[in-house]
């Protein structure tokens, strides 16, 4: 199985689909907020993730439609974690080529083999061209999990 770590971390309680966000900051707060809700990060990690975009620009917009919200491990990460927020209406982050964004992953990482494995799984999953659009269309967490399984069995 290719996506073990991703499957283990991305559970239905950290998946929220077709949410409404007013702007990029709201989208970042909601996505990282999913990690806070399950105790995987401290509340201050939400602010730190917003601050990263304010300080460094929209570099965390990784591809058309896709952002990976995150901050430094020492900003309040309790364990390796990932959440998924998709948006009913896309929002602009200020990226010259990849706006607007409608799929936001929130990452909390602690330097470890586990974290490297998680990123490897995520990279493999997102490398398939149809993944981002399919995530945007998904209506239920089950559909998202099915996409993960497809990605790992290729």
């Amino acid at each position: 199985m290719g996506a073990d770590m991703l499957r283990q971390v991305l559970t239905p309680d950290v998946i929220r689909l077709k949410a409404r966000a007013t702007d990029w900051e709201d989208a970042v707060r909601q996505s990282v907020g999913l990690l806070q809700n399950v105790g995987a990060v401290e509340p201050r990690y939400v602010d730190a993730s917003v601050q990263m975009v304010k300080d460094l620009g929209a570099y965390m917009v990784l591809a058309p439609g896709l952002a990976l919200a995150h901050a430094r491990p020492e900003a309040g990460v309790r364990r390796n974690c990932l959440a998924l927020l998709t948006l009913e209406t896309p929002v602009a982050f200020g990226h010259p080529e990849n706006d607007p964004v409608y799929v936001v992953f929130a990452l909390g990482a602690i330097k470890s083999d586990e974290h490297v494995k998680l990123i490897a799984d995520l990279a493999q999953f997102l490398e398939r061209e149809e993944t981002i659009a399919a995530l945007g269309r998904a209506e239920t967490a089950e559909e998202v999990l099915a996409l993960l399984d497809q990605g790992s069995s290729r």
Partner: protein
Amino acid sequence: VPQKRRVKVQVICGVGMGSSLMAKMTIDAVAKELGVDISSEVGQPSTAGLGKIDIIATTPFLADKLGNVGDAKIVVFTNFVSKKHIRERFEPALREVLEEIEQGM
């Protein structure tokens, strides 16, 4: 043709644990496909260029925040998940470096 030395690659993002790690994995895969021996690492803008780096890969947002990076070639990715995009932008820089190494520069 055996390589005279390994090509050193650094991938820079804000934290060095998310997007840069993802791109590093893809770069490693591309180099392997091309049969080129590289060593790659991730870093933050503050560590860019430290340690005789041949190629620095980063995002358009950080390219102008890198400071003095010596002779390193800078490659900018706007897509960190597409292997095709990364290969298109990385391969020409890699070939240039290989040529320079071959010529003993």
